[in-house]
């Protein structure tokens, strides 16, 4: 269940447009850590 990290995505096809700063906030909004934690916990409890 541990997917191999994709080297070509990371180092060859990476977003090379560095003129703008990386948008941390926009990306954080894509990940709801608390919801994911609850999901993991409930999956563990029901297992």
């Amino acid at each position, binding site marked *: 269940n541990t997917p191999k990290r994709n080297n070509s995505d*990371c180092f060859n096809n990476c977003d090379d447009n560095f003129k703008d700063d*990386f948008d*941390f906030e926009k*990306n954080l909004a894509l990940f709801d850590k608390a919801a994911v934690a609850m999901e993991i916990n409930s999956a563990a409890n029901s297992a």
Partner: protein
Amino acid sequence: FMKKHLNNPYEINLMDELTLKGVTQYYAFVQERQKVHCLNTLFSKLQINQSIIFCNSTQRVELLAKKITELGCYSCFYIHARMDQQHRNRVFHDFRQGLGRNLVCSDLFTRGIDIQAVNVVINFDFPKHAETYLHRIGRSGRYGHLGIAINLITYDDRFSLHKIEQELATEIKPIPKVINKELYVAEFSPENIEEQQQNGGG
């Protein structure tokens, strides 16, 4: 067994030698293909004295070091487990002497980082085990220095992130828009400011 045979045992958990105290931990949510861009932005925004950047494989250490060098304005050393010990020692020695600002490496520190000048640690790849995380981010107790740790988290890392937070009873917070320099830049730490004010005599 413990109670029967040990008289007032003094318990030492060896993991306690490494501490996350004084280290502010953040995560940034990224895709693999955004990682280099994200790192580049961190380099430009953070006030880095020296930094260590961890990858999860020797191959990725080499690829990342090459990429950072291509970006131009950042000096960087790298070490990984497949280099011979003599070479590794030399690079590490040079880095400790402050000859390079950034060190990219795989997991080969067994006792945590004890280079005082390192104020920023970046997990370019998030580790899978709490012990690995602690060795990368944790500092030996004798150095009470401040620092920040920034974890690049992909969606695939969500289980590891949750597990490691639970096992280490710590919290890794979303990276804020502005990171307070008091958290990791020595000149800005509250203690030093107080000292300066006292020495300056108002």
